[in-house]
């Protein structure tokens, strides 16, 4: 009779970010013996240098921007200013208060063993961490993603910024060239432009925020140019970078034109790759350049190994990573595994006005050849735009031919909160007529949702 193999742990989780920590805390809480490994800082990107510090900084800069515009309400704003070191100190405070950021003891207090080092699979059930061998019955790979060196000609001659190193300097740059216009790029561009930096945003697509409906990018490109002095360069690709003085000389191509600009710093935001150099071959885990391959239950090609977070797809948001973590925590030991409906996870950009989207976008519907109805309501049609003196934004709803809501995009103050109503509507297969009949508070921005739903009612 075969001897039962004794493992060091029931579960080893590699990576302590949004998905890894979710899995580890849940499984440890359920009484299993868990080890958590992280090669860098515990807590992962989101808590240490991603969502938490960036959104805390945005809170300050959005307030600063709104206050600067307060003179039209009768406020005296002539001497308004900011202290950059104090702003960074506030950001650091928000990171410390999150609890898990750079806090190994947080996880040990939750009843798990922690190890610092890069994990490497030697066999399907054994890893090496700084030459310490650990075995487990099951594994979860949540190593996330990192920033690879951009392939731009001349990149090795300059110091460039990434989303992780953007605020390492003690003073803000006078000018910044942002390569890419995804959510994080727009948030950083917003922060720095609000603080007075001359910001250029270069995007290969024909509108910024290419993963959102085109109305978002088109509206905000004009708004950022007019209100923050940003230079938005769509259909643009960086061709070459070179050092010049203390800054960077950038040559870019826009259509058939070649132009150049000199800036203090260049920020690359589109060079993220999954962290998969873990000896996955030794564990018989299949992977591709865009991440580890998983099925709908987040299981890899090795039945006892799961993966979650941006290691499976580098464009995964923190909330999606957390959802995947909860999914994996369930599927690890449940008899009936479950799948997650990631289409219900909202995508939020915490600028002002905020941007939020859930479900299918117009582009998604076109790719799937879905017959849809769409309605877009500018904020100027809502009574609140009068009392807030703010009209930049809209609510867009998409319904299928049966009138069931399948997607929504909101550009508005408090869009991050407003979108939850649309999430619920999609989750409940709500019809536009039912949503249109729901009472919405007068003078709330959410009235725009009711109006958009009403436009779709036939």
């Amino acid at each position, binding site marked *: 009779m075969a001897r039962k193999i004794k493992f060091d742990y029931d579960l080893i989780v590699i990576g302590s970010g949004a998905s890894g920590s979710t899995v580890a805390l849940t499984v440890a809480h359920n009484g299993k013996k868990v080890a958590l490994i992280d090669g860098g800082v515990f807590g992962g990107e989101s808590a240490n240098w991603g969502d938490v510090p960036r959104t805390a900084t945005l809170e300050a800069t959005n307030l600063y921007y709104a206050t600067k515009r307060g003179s039209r309400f009768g406020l005296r704003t002539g001497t308004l200013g900011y202290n950059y070191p104090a702003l960074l100190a506030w950001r650091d405070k928000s990171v410390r208060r999150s609890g898990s950021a750079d806090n190994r003891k947080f996880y040990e207090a939750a009843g798990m063993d922690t190890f610092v*080092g*890069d994990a*490497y699979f*030697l066999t399907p059930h054994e890893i090496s961490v*700084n*030459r310490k061998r650990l075995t487990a019955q099951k594994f979860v790979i949540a190593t996330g993603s990192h920033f690879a060196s951009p392939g731009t000609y001349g990149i090795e001659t300059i110091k460039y910024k990434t989303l992780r190193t953007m605020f390492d300097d003690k003073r803000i740059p006078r000018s910044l060239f942002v390569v890419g216009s995804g959510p994080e790029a727009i948030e950083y561009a917003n922060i720095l432009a609000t603080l007075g930096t001359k910001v250029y945003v270069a995007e290969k697509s024909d509108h910024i925020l290419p993963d959102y409906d085109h109305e978002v990018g088109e509206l905000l490109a004009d708004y950022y140019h007019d209100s923050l002095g940003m230079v938005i360069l769509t259909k643009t690709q960086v061709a070459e970078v070179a050092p010049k003085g203390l800054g960077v000389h950038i040559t870019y191509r826009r259509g058939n034109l070649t132009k150049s600009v000199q800036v203090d710093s260049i920020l690359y935001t589109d060079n993220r790759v999954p962290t998969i150099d873990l*000896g996955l*071959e030794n564990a018989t885990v299949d992977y591709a350049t865009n991440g580890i391959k998983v099925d709908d239950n987040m299981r890899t090609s090795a039945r006892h190994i799961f993966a979650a977070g941006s290691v499976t797809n580098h464009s995964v948001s923190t909330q999606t990573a957390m959802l995947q973590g909860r999914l994996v925590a369930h599927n690890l030991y449940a008899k009936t595994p479950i799948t997650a409906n990631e289409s219900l996870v909202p995508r939020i950009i915490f600028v002002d006005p905020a941007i939020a989207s859930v479900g299918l976008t117009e582009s998604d519907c076109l790719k799937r050849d879905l017959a849809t109805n769409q309605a877009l309501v500018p904020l100027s049609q809502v009574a609140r735009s009068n009392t807030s003196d703010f009209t930049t934004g809209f609510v867009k709803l998409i319904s299928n031919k049966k009138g069931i809501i399948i997607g929504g995009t909101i550009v508005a103050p408090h869009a991050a909160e407003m979108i939850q109503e649309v999430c619920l509507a999609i989750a409940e297969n709500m019809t536009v007529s039912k949503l249109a009949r729901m009472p919405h508070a007068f003078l709330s921005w959410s009235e725009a949702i009711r109006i958009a739903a009403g436009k779709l009612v036939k």
Partner: protein
Amino acid sequence: MADSSNVVMIIKAGKKQVVKPFERAKLIASIEASCTSVSLPVGMSRDTARDVCVKVEKWLSDKSEVTSEDIRRIAAQQLTRISAEAGYFYANYKQMF
């Protein structure tokens, strides 16, 4: 994380697991042999072997322990970029002989 002063240990799988430090000369010799086996000139074989070894060492710079199969896989990937035939030979010589 292994630093440049740390010796990377190579684990050879088998009935009894053998762990030995990484040997640069051994890797260079095996790559050079693959190159000469596919009739690359001697000088080119030597230079290719050194270039590939540098790339493997760069990959090993943040590792503390890897398997011999990992070394073979990375070396074969780098060698294939220079000579497809030599890379194939290096990756598959066990099956071939």
